[in-house]
């Protein structure tokens, strides 16, 4: 990429003109790679989040298979002890920070503005910044593989094991700085999406008329807002220790390694709910559609989500029962951990009650949703056993814990995201994923998943320690380890079927010129009211909301005897996708320019501080360029409709309210 046509080529290029309000010309393309690099459209950003997460998912999945191959038989020789440490650390870190978190961000970015009847998020450019900064952080983290090896202290990197003395390579530095950068992305995203939910709702959409997914997004963003800075604080301490000889975790100087453990888990336990609540939201959208009933106990669903959000802050020390925090702490955190099972149980029961008596159809999204409810419940139950401190002391650092959190994160988290993929794929990409392959995909995944992680309960209770690169023959670990490794390959097969399904369905849709209607599932919330795939401007006319499940209530009503009757044809209710006169926020170079500077700062801290100066200049220049350009270019915004309709019609207004107050955007 030469400077002449790269993102830094400001003010040049054929189609660009200097515009009076901006200091530099703005990108104007609507198609091609440059339009993706400069996009501020929440839908495109959501798609990019999802695509990046899938790439990282493949990387993390390969790491998982290396772990299982090493452990398939006793005295495995595939990985050395050192390499094994790096592989499991990077597997955990990748799956949590670069797969499940961005998948949540992908769904929230795409769906949340649609569900509240908005044309975009509150700060479209900040949204683009979140994505690019997240990608920069993920690349810094994974570049460790090419620059001397990954982090090797587990995804939590306990002190003092994370110090230079015990981990002399730069692996943990890459881990630390990569996650610090990704943390900036989370913080920016949280500020942006919280503002969006609070401020951008369509007329009439009060908080208690928001879909459950939007509610769970809001809770997750608040958790991110408050949890990420605690990790950031801890990571700064670690960075100062490792790179600038500070003494935060040097026990010989009297430092207390428990400080790291507390700070990490004060972040780490809310993080667990950051990972799981988005998929709770997804299945809360899917199950009512395929049960043809409204969600059971909507207020309970909302308030249990909020309760989980609050109580998630009071349970962190149950990760530390074995660290000697003292009997009073142990007792208090035991009790709070038992309590937090209550709102979670409320959710499970409400999903079951939603299905109860419904006209169930078992399309692929529904299968995965039921998969989530069942698998998560198993994980939840083994989680409650951790609340019993004596039992937990025995389970600590065994495969029982590994089994538990994979049932929650994979059986709960990933199942929900796949449900969401099958459910919203037509809305996002304009074609449906094959139903038959979807069902095959599900059953193979379910079998593979339980074969992989089910036996780990047994191994753990037999005493097999986690994070140990091999085991000897004769401990009784052989059989279940082998079963678990076989299961991993079944999961991999299932994921290959998923990718094949994407490809085959796309080819079929293209060949047979299939298109999907706006509302293929006879669904309930506002995102189904716009054509599939969603037009750039979302809504032709911002709907005025009077019900929870507004779209459903526009289609169906009740007769005198309270029976469900159709009151309007779907085609009459959905919008036509005519975006004339809609002003959209303008694309911008600055988000990616700013994100580009951040890895240089990270590499500079590790190798040579002069790189930091370069990266810093890049970031500061981007901030000032950003401030000088209005969020919505007054000369643009007419590009999304034909030239003969240059007069903005009165029927719709502007996408965001940031035009005049762009200075602080």
């Amino acid at each position: 990429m030469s400077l002449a046509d790269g993102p830094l080529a400001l003010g040049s290029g054929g189609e660009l003109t200097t515009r009076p309000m901006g200091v530099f010309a703005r990108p104007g393309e609507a198609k091609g790679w440059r339009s993706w690099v400069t996009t501020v459209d929440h839908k495109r950003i959501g798609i990019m989040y999802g695509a990046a997460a899938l790439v990282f998912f493949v990387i993390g999945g390969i790491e998982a298979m290396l772990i299982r191959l090493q452990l398939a038989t006793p005295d495995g020789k595939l990985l050395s002890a050192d390499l094994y440490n790096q592989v499991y650390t990077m597997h955990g870190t990748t799956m949590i920070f670069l797969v499940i978190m961005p998948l949540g961000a992908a769904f929230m970015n795409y769906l949340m503005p649609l569900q509240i009847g908005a044309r975009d998020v509150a700060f479209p450019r900040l949204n683009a910044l979140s994505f690019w900064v997240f990608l920069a952080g993920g690349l810094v983290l994974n570049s460790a593989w090419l620059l001397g090896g990954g982090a090797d202290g587990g995804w939590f990197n306990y002190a003092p094991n994370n110090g230079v003395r015990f981990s002399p390579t730069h692996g943990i530095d890459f881990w630390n700085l990569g996650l610090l950068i990704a943390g900036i992305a989370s913080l920016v995203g949280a500020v942006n999406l919280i503002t969006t939910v609070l401020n951008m709702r369509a007329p009439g959409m009060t908080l208690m008329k928001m879909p459950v997914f939007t509610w769970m997004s809001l809770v997750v963003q608040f958790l991110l807002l408050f949890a990420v800075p605690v990790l950031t604080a801890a990571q700064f301490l670690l960075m100062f220790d490792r790179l600038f000889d500070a003494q935060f975790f040097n026990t010989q100087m009297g430092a207390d390694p428990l400080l790291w453990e507390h700070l990490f888990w004060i972040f780490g336990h809310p993080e667990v709910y950051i990972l799981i609540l988005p998929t709770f939201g997804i299945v809360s959208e899917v199950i009512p559609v395929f049960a043809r009933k409204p969600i059971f106990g909507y207020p309970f669903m909302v308030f249990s989500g909020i309760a989980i959000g609050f109580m998630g802050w009071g349970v962190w020390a149950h990760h530390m029962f074995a660290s000697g925090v003292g009997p009073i702490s142990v007792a208090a955190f035991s009790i709070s951990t038992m309590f937090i099972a209550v709102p979670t149980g409320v959710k499970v029961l409400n999903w079951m009650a939603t299905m109860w008596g419904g006209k169930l159809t078992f399309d692929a999204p529904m299968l995965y949703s039921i998969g989530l409810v069942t698998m998560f419940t198993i994980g939840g139950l083994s989680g409650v056993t951790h609340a019993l401190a004596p039992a937990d002391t025995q389970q600590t650092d065994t495969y029982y814990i590994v089994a538990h959190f994979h049932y929650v994160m994979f059986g709960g988290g990933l199942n929900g995201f796949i449900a969401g993929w099958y459910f919203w794929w037509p809305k996002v990409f304009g074609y449906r994923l094959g139903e038959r392959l979807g069902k095959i995909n599900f059953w193979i995944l379910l079998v593979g998943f339980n074969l992989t992680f089910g036996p780990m309960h047994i191994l753990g209770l037999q005493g097999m320690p986690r994070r140990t690169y091999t085991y000897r023959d004769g401990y009784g670990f052989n059989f279940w380890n082998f079963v678990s490794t076989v299961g991993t390959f079944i999961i991999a097969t299932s994921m290959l079927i998923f990718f094949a399904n994407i490809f085959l369905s796309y080819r079929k849709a293209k060949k047979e010129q299939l298109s999907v209607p706006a509302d293929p599932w006879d669904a309930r919330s506002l995102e189904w009211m716009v054509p599939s795939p969603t037009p750039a401007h979302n809504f032709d006319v911002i709907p005025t909301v009077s019900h929870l499940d507004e779209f459903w209530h526009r289609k169906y009503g009740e007769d005198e005897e309270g029976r469900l009757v159709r009151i309007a044809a779907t085609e009459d209710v959905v919008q036509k996708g005519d975006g004339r006169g809609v002003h959209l926020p303008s694309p911008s170079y600055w988000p990616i320019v700013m994100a580009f500077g951040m890895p240089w700062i990270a590499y500079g801290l590790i190798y040579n501080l002069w790189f930091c100066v370069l990266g810093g200049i890049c970031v500061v220049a981007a901030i000032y360029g950003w401030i000088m350009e209005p969020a919505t270019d007054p000369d643009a915004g007419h590009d999304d409709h034909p030239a003969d309709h240059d007069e903005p019609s009165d029927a719709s207004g502007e996408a965001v309210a940031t035009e005049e107050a762009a200075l602080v955007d």
Partner: protein
Amino acid sequence: MTDLADTTAVGAHPGAATHDHTHVTATGISNEKVAMWAFLGSECLLFGGLISTFLLYKDRAADGPVPHELYDIAFTSISSFVLLMSSLTMVLAVSAISRGDDRALRAWLLVTALLGSIFISGQVYEFKEFLNEGLGFTTSPAGSAFFTLTGFHGVHVTIGIVMLISAALLSRSGRITQRNAEAVEIVGLYWHFVDVVWILIFTVVYLIK
């Protein structure tokens, strides 16, 4: 904040059937202000983590001096007073722009930035004094925690000074006027937050034994 959102959501759109060209938000508070409040909420947890670290480590001095032995309370009180006064001048700046008085706005912004700079100079002087007396960043957990906490605050003040000067320059070039006076108010929110955090740090670090 959420209660407010609920009650004003409908009221903010009187009869808004299909039109949304007013720039009214569902809460009635501008996006920028909500975002700044959310960001400041996040900052509370960042400083919470660093203050906790300092409280844990303040007496773990290894072979070096304990920070407490080195404080010059009179000196730091004066610099704290200067920083607090900058909050007053910040209020005067916001008041000036809401009246549409651009010259007074720039004057008060620059006075605020100057007071902030005096505080930062005091902090630099204090750091140098501590170094001379044997308490460095790498001396002990107490030293690391002290310099990290106060240093983070100093960086926040410095960023605030840059924001104030930028706002003054933007006002000069006509980009901040009475019409978008809220931009100044939001810079002010940040500045007051940084001051409030210093009150906490001054109390916890310097005054409480």
